[in-house]
């Protein structure tokens, strides 16, 4: 009994983390159609920056926000200087983002060595929640709360603000958005920076239980891809549902079908893509 309860609670917890990871990817991909293959690298670099700040005794939340800001700057710069010249050219975008993924991975290895780093869980978030014989770390529930808060904030941003209206216009039809006077170019930079910041923030939030180590980037990237593809391209709601769906699939799948542990995420993904190529919440693209 306690096994199933633990799995269920952990599914939600993992889903929260996955949303922090993939919401930025979803935003970028939805608006700009850029397959950002350095998204996992943003997550990892953000986590490393967070670890470095925490080691200097900086408050956890400040470290997470600072790390997010740094990633926004880096992401914004890459978009402004390089990516924008490749609008609509998928192959060069793939090459560019993978090139940066190589560079970020190697720079991290150089700066932080190959050792894994795992910051201590912040003091005020330590401890466990005990309900009905279940023992569950408080911190992971905090991650879920943060993920939900960010989901609400993003929803408010996209659905209720002027900026959000512009983003939606851009997602629906960028050329028309341009015609009606939306400065799509600045919008792109802003959204790319925001996506990078979300990844960096997620990296810091994940660090106390994922730890940070070389290779984290390419472990996270497929997860972000799966969530977004499953949920549907360009749909934040899809990313949210996809995150929790993957959380449950991963937890119960690996526990119930250990022999399928390697394919437990990819098999359903193939199925869904074959049956519904636009994803669960995606619009049919014409």
């Amino acid at each position: 009994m306690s096994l199933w309860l633990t799995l269920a609670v952990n599914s939600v917890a993992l889903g929260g983390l996955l949303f922090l990871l993939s919401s930025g990817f979803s935003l970028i991909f939805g608006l700009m159609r850029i397959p950002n293959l350095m998204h996992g690298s943003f997550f990892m670099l953000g986590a490393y920056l967070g670890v470095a700040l925490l080691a200097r005794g900086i408050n956890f939340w400040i470290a997470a926000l600072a790390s997010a800001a740094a990633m926004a700057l880096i992401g914004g710069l890459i978009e402004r200087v390089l990516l924008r010249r490749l609008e609509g050219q998928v192959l060069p975008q793939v090459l560019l983002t993978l090139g940066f993924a190589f560079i970020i991975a190697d720079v991290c290895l150089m700066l932080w060595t190959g050792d894994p780093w795992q910051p201590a869980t912040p003091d005020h978030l330590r401890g466990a929640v005990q309900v009905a014989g279940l023992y569950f770390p408080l911190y992971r529930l905090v991650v879920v709360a943060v993920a939900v808060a960010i989901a609400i904030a993003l929803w408010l941003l996209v659905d209720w603000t002027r900026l959000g209206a512009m983003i939606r216009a851009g997602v629906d039809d960028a050329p028309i958005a341009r015609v009606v006077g939306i400065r799509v170019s600045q919008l792109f930079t802003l959204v790319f920076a925001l996506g990078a910041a979300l990844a960096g923030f997620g990296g810091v939030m994940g660090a106390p239980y994922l730890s940070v180590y070389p290779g984290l980037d390419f472990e996270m990237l497929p997860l972000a891809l799966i969530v977004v593809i499953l949920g549907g391209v360009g749909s934040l709601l899809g990313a949210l549902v996809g995150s929790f769906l993957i959380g449950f699939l991963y937890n119960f799948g690996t526990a119930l079908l250990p022999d399928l542990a390697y394919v437990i995420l990819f098999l359903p993904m193939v199925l869904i893509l074959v049956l519904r190529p636009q994803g669960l919440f995606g619009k049919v693209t014409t």
Partner: protein
Amino acid sequence: MARKLNRRTFLAGTAAGTAATALRFPAPAVAQAASFKIGLLTVKTGPLAQGGIQMEQGILTFLKEKANTLAGRKVELLIADTGGNPAGARTKAQEVIERDKVNVILGPLAAFELLAITDYVRDNATPLISLAAAEDVTQRRANPFIIRPSATSAQCCHVMGEYATKELKHRRAATISEDFAFGYEQMAGFQRVFEDSGGKVVKKLWPPLVTPDYTPFIAQIGNVDCVFNGFAGSNPVKFMRSYADLGLKAKTPLLAGWTAMDDALLRSLGDEAVGVVSAAFYSADFGSDSNKRFVAAMQKDYNVLPGGYSAGMYVAGQCVEAAIQALGAQADDRKALAEALHKVSLADTPRGAVKFDAYGNVVGDVFIRRCEKKGSALVNTVIKTYPNVSQFWTYNEKEFLANPVYTRDYPPARNLEN
């Protein structure tokens, strides 16, 4: 972290020599006739870089201590980055053998890398001193050109199997390790001795090598006296935090193989590791003279506590030195060198006395350590030493080899419960 000896090609001494190797094309014979070439197959990029960088530090520390002269021979170290995959190991083995014509190879790091090149080094008659643990390379597929001064996968785990029943009085155990050969061999060794000395392994869990979250596995552990884990690389850090976070640390003691509690890993770990008992072929607090020198030098040059990866390469360097000493002018004969390496017997290494069995695997001490907190730092304190442990443990060698190599399902686990 700054590394002082940050050169792909590390040649002590003359500037002329450095210039010749900087090009690394087949250099004129005059420039290199005298130097003895050691090729290091290690991993400096990608997810396995952690252990690979330590291997490099270990051998560099040894060569620095010896001023790059072993038994009167100038030594040249050629470092090759395999990237941590079999194809890379193969290509880099070709590089150091065919292009650089090294006298001996140290490394590689991972079992699957070693298995990709064992036939190749034999066909090309180049001695290799392995760190990788793949059991069969010094058992059923023993190779006259390979010795292993570190340990087979199961060598330390056999010891832990006995310690867990005899000393810790555990009766029911769960095992958890990555789903790959190094994990299978470790867990099989533990299970065999643990069950032969009265215990029962009731649960075996195999998370994939890349596992974002160990919780679904840890949640299945159930009612046992102890959990033996064999994680490697960066996984132990992630695993132990989850283990503690889920409240098991207080309930069920955690035991570990050498990679899971390697001394070099301690600075990445926190309170969750305190109390974990591990079995290892090397311990930084071991009191031999060479180990004191080694630990001091590693701390001075790299500001790290050395672990099994770097110690393994330091000992490998000592083996090379002893073999050159034994052969004298004959040391360039690779076949003779391989034979001499098998006969090496060292009284003082950072891991204690070292000699090799007929299959080229080390017979040496295995330490049982308990992780403690001293000040703000973690240390593994040796609580018991098992001397002269063979890869066959106390089993009869012939019977041992007549059985299949350790795998996921061998020896069969007869006491599993759901």
